């Protein structure tokens, strides 16, 4: 068993004690699951030990995120391990304790002013509203891309005392707004290239979650088709159903192949933006087919909260347009593969991943 398999086994063991539940305004996330993961050191994987992380590679963090996504774990692990944590480390900011949830948001309406409070450079005050904050209300810390006087600023801010609005995505995951009113933060200037890569990593985090959830939905649907008997036969014995399941399998396999390739592109630090854009667009495109057919095969029970299917299909319908909509990333990819000019499409495509 590889180290990564061991990590996955550990996450599965922990997950088995925390059934997915319907997220509501009263209970927006699974703090028990978070605590169990943090106690096992899993909320610091991929982040350097000397900075308070648990060590390990990006691939280990990806494996954890995949496993939690397939189990519909309502915790900000994708944001912390794949986006905000690595961004803080790369920007040389002090990493908050990894047992305190850290999330990420784009803050186009947030301005960062350098503050001269005697503590030297890297101190800012933030003003403005951040919308669409994943796990708002649950996260203690926020990494936000703000506009600074001298260019974009990656800012790390303690948001534990701030009130978030109650907005949620289609699965009930918190996506509220936070109002920042001269809030102190640490921060660093980023080049626009680094900003684009960070946005791409956020998209990749969602792609990894999408890939895992799509795979799990296929597995549930295959299992259900084998168990549910109608007209004296399991559903899976009917050709019409087999065609649908095979179509789902094609989509899932395509998504997994491209998402894995994008993760490798990030590991190699090559063509990160286009590789992540492609993975996000492809994963998003699969959602329509896979979620539609999964519900069709599951019949009426899958259309209720009695059955587990909705935990993942509602997430799929949300995630495909989070961290940049499918349209936005399609434009990034389309423009990117044309960067070499009218005859440059093929060389560009063979370079992306």
């Amino acid at each position, binding site marked *: 068993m590889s180290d990564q398999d061991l990590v996955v086994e550990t996450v599965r063991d922990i997950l088995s004690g925390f059934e997915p539940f319907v997220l509501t305004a009263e209970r927006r996330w699974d703090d028990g699951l978070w605590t169990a993961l943090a106690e096992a050191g899993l909320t610091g994987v991929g982040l350097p030990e000397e900075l308070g992380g648990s060590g390990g590679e990006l691939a280990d963090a990806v494996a954890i995120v*995949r*496993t939690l996504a*397939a189990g519909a774990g309502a915790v900000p692990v994708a944001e912390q391990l794949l986006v905000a944590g690595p961004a803080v480390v790369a920007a040389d900011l002090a990493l908050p304790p990894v047992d305190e949830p850290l999330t990420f948001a784009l803050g186009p309406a947030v301005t960062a002013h350098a503050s001269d409070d005697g503590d030297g450079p890297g101190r800012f005050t933030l003003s403005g509203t951040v919308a669409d904050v994943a796990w708002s209300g649950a996260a203690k810390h926020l990494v936000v891309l703000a506009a600074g006087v001298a260019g974009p600023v990656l800012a790390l801010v303690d948001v534990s005392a701030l009130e978030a609005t109650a907005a949620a995505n289609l699965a009930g995951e918190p996506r509220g707004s936070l109002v920042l009113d001269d809030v102190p933060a640490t921060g660093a200037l980023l080049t626009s290239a680094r900003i684009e890569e960070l946005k791409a990593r956020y998209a990749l985090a969602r792609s990894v979650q999408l890939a*895992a959830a799509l*795979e*799990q939905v*296929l*597995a549930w649907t*295959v299992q259900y*088709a*084998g168990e549910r008997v109608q007209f004296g036969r399991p559903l*899976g*014995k009917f*050709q019409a*159903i*087999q*065609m649908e*399941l*095979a*179509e789902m*399998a*094609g*989509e*899932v*396999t*395509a*998504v*997994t*192949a*491209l998402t*894995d*390739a994008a993760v*490798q592109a990030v590991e190699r630090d090559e063509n990160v933006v286009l590789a992540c*854009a*492609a*993975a996000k*667009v*492809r994963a998003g*495109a699969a959602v329509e087919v896979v979620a539609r057919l999964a519900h069709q095969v599951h019949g009426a029970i899958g259309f209720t909260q009695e059955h587990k299917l909705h935990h993942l299909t509602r997430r799929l319908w949300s995630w495909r347009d989070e961290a940049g909509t499918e*349209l936005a*990333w*399609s*434009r*990034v*990819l*389309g*423009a990117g*593969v*044309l960067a070499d*000019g*009218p*005859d440059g*499409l*093929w*060389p560009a*495509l*063979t370079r*992306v*991943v």
Partner: protein
Amino acid sequence: MTNPLALAPAPRSDDAEKVRGEVREFLAAELAAGSFDTHVDTWLSGVDPAFSKKLGDRGWLGMTWPKEYGGHERSAMERYAVTEELLAAGAPVAAHWIADRQSGPNLLTYGTEKQRQEILPRIAAGECFFVIGMSEPDSGSDLASIRTKAVRNADGDWVVNGAKVWTSNAHHAHYGIVLVRTTPLDTSHRHRGMSQLLVDLSLPGITINPIRILDGGHHFNEVVFDDVVVPGDMLLGKEGDGWHQVTAELAFERSGPERFLSTYPLVAEFARRVADSGDSASVAVLGRISARLLALRQMSLRIAAALDRGELPNIPAALVKDVGTTFESDVIDEVRRVVDVSPSLDSPDPLGRALAEAQLHAPGYTLRGGTNEILRGIVARGLGLR
């Protein structure tokens, strides 16, 4: 959670990237010299023996075969790079395509030493072309129902009677690998009693009749066998093993880049248009098409890597072909919804011509090499449903 159809990621291959660069240089020179025009679906329609010979001279045919049979002992990943570059350029590769992809590997696995020595070096040189003789007028997806039969005569030779259809480019080919019944159909064991014969298409008693496809092109044929005497030593593999032999190596036939790049020249033409117009809706469509294509490349590369490991991933290959050929067709409507161009083979606009060629060839994409319904049945078996 694990998808039973997923394969390990393909490793990066510097050798493949090197040969890719060489092919690209060659193609640019050929295009500049006007030796070919770019078309859609050239692995069916682009027959040019002189071009095939050039590829053979450069060592780009029979790439993975042993050197003793004229091959070059290169990896499936390198072969993948060569074939996808040729298809993306819309180069005329139809003459040798079947021989290089399928018939050669078939001979390597099942052929006698004499058959291999005589034929494989000529395929690798780009001088010997093959057709597949499987489908018949009354046998399409249900291959076990074929009626072409071969009976041994007193000299130990095979006497063949029957007809094969959809035999692409039989009028340019030298040999066919023909699936025949050597034992009458036993309805309780339908897959038994078939054999593969290596048939020289110039033998007396063979008639090749053209069957035109929708754009009027002559690629398909009906090949009629009327008491054709095939020498006894031209049996391929074992008598009665025909079914096993034709199904064993479908990973080669179904996983390659020709299963998602048949309409790529249309995409390239569309990209030229978008680069000029900058139209935002078109840029997004190009992004969506690109994402699908990139995923298919990864799927196909994973199979090439598996072939290099000595595996025969037939079920994942069926999946590549299902997803890939669906994409080839979808591209047409993705493009035509955002460009103000009418399709016509006579259009002065290259995009109008590419749309016309792609559309008129489209019904074939999801039929040839196993219909998508058959493929999905295979995938369903892989999922444990049947």
